[in-house]
């Protein structure tokens, strides 16, 4: 129950898929296997996906946890406006990027993982989710009231002296029984 935000999961998947694409691409190019051009494409695609997905979106309710150092990426991604805000566009972009990577053995896994991420983004888009950037908080802390700088002028209100004195006939009303008699000063 409750509102599940699928986009957050899709974001994690897409980031992991981007890394898998990058790794597969590097292996494909390093070994110069058959179809290594696709591996070179996969390196570029992996880097692009990682850059796009690194900044986490803002949660609808509750506090959002940023990834370390994501502010500059947030600014870049935010600059594209509706292209990056809308999840339909993201789902389509990921699906389109994933397809060429399927033609080479080393990058096939990256293709499958990115395809799954694209499907989850589609689901998130159908539910109406959007990418909101996490901007740093600009509100300043409320200034502490002036009265804290001045000591209070009057003593705090106290009940009259009869009530404060312990009465011998009302031991239950007293706060506690001192087993040893204390002297008159108060700590």
């Amino acid at each position: 129950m409750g509102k599940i935000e699928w986009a957050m999961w899709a974001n994690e998947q897409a980031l992991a898929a981007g890394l898998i694409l990058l790794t597969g691409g590097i292996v494909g190019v390093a070994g110069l296997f058959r179809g290594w051009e696709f591996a070179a494409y996969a390196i570029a695609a992996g880097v692009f996906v990682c850059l796009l997905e690194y900044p986490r979106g803002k949660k609808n309710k509750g506090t959002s946890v940023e990834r370390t150092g994501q502010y500059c990426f947030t600014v870049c991604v935010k600059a594209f406006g509706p292209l990056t805000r809308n999840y339909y566009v993201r789902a389509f972009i990921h699906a389109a990027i994933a397809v060429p990577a399927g033609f080479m053995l080393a990058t096939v896994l990256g293709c499958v993982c990115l395809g799954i991420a694209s499907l989850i983004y589609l689901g998130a888009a159908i539910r109406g989710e959007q990418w909101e950037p996490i901007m740093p908080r600009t509100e300043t802390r409320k200034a502490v009231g002036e009265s804290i700088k001045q000591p209070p002028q009057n003593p705090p209100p106290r009940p009259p002296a009869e009530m404060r004195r312990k009465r011998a006939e009302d031991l239950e009303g007293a706060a506690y029984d001192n087993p040893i008699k204390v002297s008159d000063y108060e700590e």
Partner: protein
Amino acid sequence: MVLSFKSWVANEGGKHFVLILWLGANTWLFLRTFLTYSTGQQYYYLYKMLGLGLCISRASASVLNLNCSLVLLPMCRSLLTSLRGTHTLSSRGTRRLLDKSKTFHVACGIAICIFSVVHVSAHLVNVVNFSAFYCEDLPALNLARYLGEDPRMIILTTVPGITGVLLVVILFLMFTASSYCIRLSNYEIFWYTHNLFIVFYIILMVHMVGGALKYQTNVDTHPPGCLRPNQSSPELQGKELEPGNEERRCKEEARFHPHYPQTWMWVSGPLCLYCAERFYRYIRSSDPVTIVTVIRHPSEVIEVRMLKRDFKAHPGQYIVLNCPGVSSFENHPFTLTTCPTEEKETFGVHMRVVGDWTERFTELLLPKTGVELEILPMVQQRRYPKLYVDGPFGSSSQEVFNYEVSLCVAGGIGVTPFACVLHALLDGWKQFRLRRLYFVWVCRELQSFYWFSELLCALHHKLWQENRPDYLNLKLFVSQTEDLQ
């Protein structure tokens, strides 16, 4: 200097010892399997065809076997709870290791992911080599059907290939849903994907069926590298009559046999144990509890007191609540604030109303008109929702009584395990090893202290009456100062 080393060993030594033991086991298994495949006589031909990829893939597979079996053990919570209580783990240091069970589970999970990446990469290289080095002399050894078969076809038409792809997909789903951020905000995604583990294990046990990798069975009659009857070795040209040459001749052709699947031997034990534990927990929690009292406290906290047959708990343990009227599949843990004793059989939890499950649960329990307290005799109980309780499960707060001096620091509603400890002290403090308890409680607002004000006053009063005023040192702090001004 010596004292800090001794205290480091007492506090952190056990954890690090287990970590080193686990790393050592993984390393030893990896190296042993690697060496078996690279130097073993029965793998000579296979190694020549596949090269290093064979050794790395098999070695990572054996590490994966070990970690897939170990990863289930820390999740058997009832078993760990009973281990905490029995005298088998009488040392405090060993019991502290149980606090780190979730960390061990995460470590094994990360090892599974890393070695899966290694295993998959090595097997992709193997598939390429199977295709490129198709051997006509030894047809039984090949996985490819002809020289240069497309490696992707090999993957998609063999059982290990297809099961491997499915396993990677499931592992990818489980791993991406397990990050801290997802668990914090959308716990359901994490829970439902993690429950795919049963599919993962079933597919894992079928993964080796089909026998892609074969070993040679007749090493004694056909020593690897021996010469065929009509073949001569390049170095021995013209020296065929030398003695000792006869051993280099093959007596028969090499015969190969696929491996017997081994994963089930590693995995079935812990898997059966975990399934038995889940079944036991299901049976134990199928008896619904009777809600006796519901009290609304300030700062959005409600207290629920319940009764259940044959329910025994120790201070510091927690229970898991399931209310089908709110959500059939969600289980939420709450620490017990009162445990059942011989005199009083009810037990209670304090829960802070934050989030949809607790809000809906509070609506079902209390009407919205702000009634402060509802205690009805059992005969006239209003229709409370059905509630199932699973537990109790152990936690590290149970250890407060086993040390001479304990410092308990709590923030807000996190005071609940210590509230149970204080209740237990109220019943009797002399039988514990505890000699002094420092209790620090920080709350956001002053009203929050009303949750346990009676308990604190009663315990303080009792200790003063019994001439142990120094037993409990209470320090209360308030963090938001705006309302105080």
